[in-house]
């Protein structure tokens, strides 16, 4: 659907994006993650044709291109910094923003009414935007970005401003969009939601790719696919934990609890045996590493 090849972008002395290459496949949800200042928004703005890269190429699928130019009508965009016309009614706002990308006003209106109904805003369609709550304004903003049924949608922080119930609903909607043929590029800080809906993930660090792949692939490349959570009866020093063989990383949780990330090739029994030699174990369980842990592991002490 879209491919970036050695894309660079600098602002004065700061290199926001540095020789970045990746591709988003048709029909997938691709998550672009990274700490603040990693270059996500710059990357997204280049993809959305808002700013130009200093170097490199951004290629789009043939059907997204007309006369050598990107068809903006095929793109959907929910920017991180967003706003709406406060004095304009909800439906008028949607028809205007959608109409800039799509010429079929009748179809747009039908779509807009369906979306508003789904988001519980149908009876507010004639109300001014300023009379809506922040969450409802966010819903209108979200609808505006996908109203014209884009082939490729970039959603920058789609969950921000929503309560957990609405976050769940938005994640369902994103999956549904993907299932209906819209390829999604997603950037968000809600890791538990991203790991559930993203097909592939790219971790961006200072404008460069840190790691890219499915959740399982990036677990393997960064921290570990497995996590052992263990609680000791007494305190165990960090030095002892560091000396364990076959352990890629470990982190102290509350009190005497530790999370341990074993190397892929090591048997679980080998690790447990070493742990039991450090101190008596009172509790132990195993699980897969979450994206949150991967993120913290990857960017610890970097995020501002």
């Amino acid at each position, binding site marked *: 659907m879209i491919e970036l090849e050695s894309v660079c972008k600098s602002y004065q002395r700061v290199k926001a994006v540095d020789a970045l290459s990746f591709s988003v496949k048709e029909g997938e949800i691709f998550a672009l993650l990274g700490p603040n200042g990693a270059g996500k928004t710059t990357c997204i*703005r280049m993809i959305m044709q808002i700013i130009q890269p200093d170097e490199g190429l951004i*290629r*789009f699928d043939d059907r997204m291109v007309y006369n*050598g*130019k990107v068809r*903006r009508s095929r793109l959907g*965009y929910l920017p991180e910094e967003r706003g709406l016309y*406060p004095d304009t009614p909800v439906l008028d706002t949607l028809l205007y*923003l959608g109409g800039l990308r799509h010429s079929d006003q009748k179809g747009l209106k039908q779509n807009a009414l369906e979306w508003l109904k789904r988001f519980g805003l149908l009876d507010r369609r004639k109300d001014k935007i300023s009379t809506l709550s922040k969450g409802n304004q966010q819903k209108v903003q979200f609808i*505006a970005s996908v109203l014209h049924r884009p082939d490729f949608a970039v959603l920058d922080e789609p969950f921000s401003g929503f309560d957990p119930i609405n976050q769940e609903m938005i994640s369902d909607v994103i999956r549904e969009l993907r299932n209906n043929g819209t390829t999604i590029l997603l950037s968000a800080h809600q890791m538990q939601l991203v790991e559930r809906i993203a097909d592939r993930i790219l971790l961006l660090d200072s404008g460069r790719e840190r790691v890219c792949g499915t959740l399982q692939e990036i677990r393997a490349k960064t921290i570990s696919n497995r996590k052992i959570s263990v609680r000791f009866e007494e305190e165990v020093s960090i030095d002892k934990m560091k000396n364990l063989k076959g352990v890629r990383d470990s982190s102290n949780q509350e009190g005497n609890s530790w999370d341990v990330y074993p190397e892929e090739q090591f048997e679980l029994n080998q690790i447990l045996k070493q742990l039991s030699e450090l101190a008596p174990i009172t509790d132990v369980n195993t699980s897969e590493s979450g994206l949150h842990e991967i993120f913290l592991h990857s960017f610890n002490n970097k995020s501002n």
Partner: protein
Amino acid sequence: MNAVQQEQSEPGKARAVLQVAKWEFNRFFKIKSMISSVVWTLVFMVIGGGVGYWLAASSDETFQIAVVDYGPIHQDSLYHETAQFHNRTEVPFDSLLASLQQREIHAVLSVDSPDEARIWTQGEPGWVQVLQLRLDELRSDFKIRQYDLTEEAHADIIAPMALERINTRETVVSRADKVLAGVAISLVLMAVFLGFAYQFTAITGEKQQRITEQIVSAIHPQAWIDGKILGISAIGLANILVYGILGLFVSMMLYLVFGTVFPNVLLMINPMLLIVFLSMSVLGVLMWNSFLAAVAATIDDPNSSERSALMLLPTLPVLFAFFALFHPDSTAISIMGWFPLTSFAVMPARMVLTEVAVWEVLVALILLVAVVWLFRRLAGRIFAFSMMIHGKEPGMKEMVHWFKRAE
């Protein structure tokens, strides 16, 4: 996969421009507000006219002047339509001064000799100038009688020079044309200032409300700025139309009530002049809106920007147009009639007041069209790079750099 340039002109760009223009027009031009505004204007005109009429009627007051000494002037000859002169030669001067202070009379006059007189007043009223003229006449009569001139000789001396006016121009400047020129320039100025207000709200407001990014991801920045220029210019032109019609309506009402000649303006308007006026007005409004859009695009916060002062620039051409009323054929005014930044106001003024060759009008129009195109491109390019800048305004060096880099 296709490699694509980052700048592109989306198919249906014209549609996007019209859509933005329509949106901007509907956003700011509200029929209800316009009707309310027109009604209030009429109310103020009626109130203003009524108060003016009342003031004029009340100014018919006759001034009461006590004369303590007539000198060589005959009492009966001291008269004036705005004043009543009372013989108070027997009344003590102090009591007259007391009456003056108590505003029972307006002045005390003493004609001491044919060459000298004194007047006591409260303050410095303007009607004393009128009285002075009457006293001059009386002095002149006195002097003529003193030299024993006949009435014929006297009349011959004071008779004015007969000055026959022969206009060598084929066309005569009609009062209607002058009225039209003044009204047209004023309306265009109004439209430009409306543009000033709306461009600021539309462009800087959207930047501050973070609306810009999602819009320019949908359409090209140039299409967006073109739409704004068109939509906001259309608001200005709609106001010109509404207030132009309102002016005619008021003129007709004045005719019906007072029998003045205003309705004849329509019949006396030179059609060619009208076409040039309209073309110049539309282009002038478009040009200044493009300029204002370019300025607004560089402004982050209109409350603190020093560039806000640039918005007053459109008043200069109107000032020059008023200079043109006095010196329509001077070299400087002729050049201003062609110069695009001033032509929209100066050229119509010149056309009313003097002979302007057709080629001059054409040159002015072509240059104006070229500058409208240039300004809108400039506004589009400045906007394209400044739209994402928050917290600081781009300097001139930066703007030139980005202008060169732009498509």
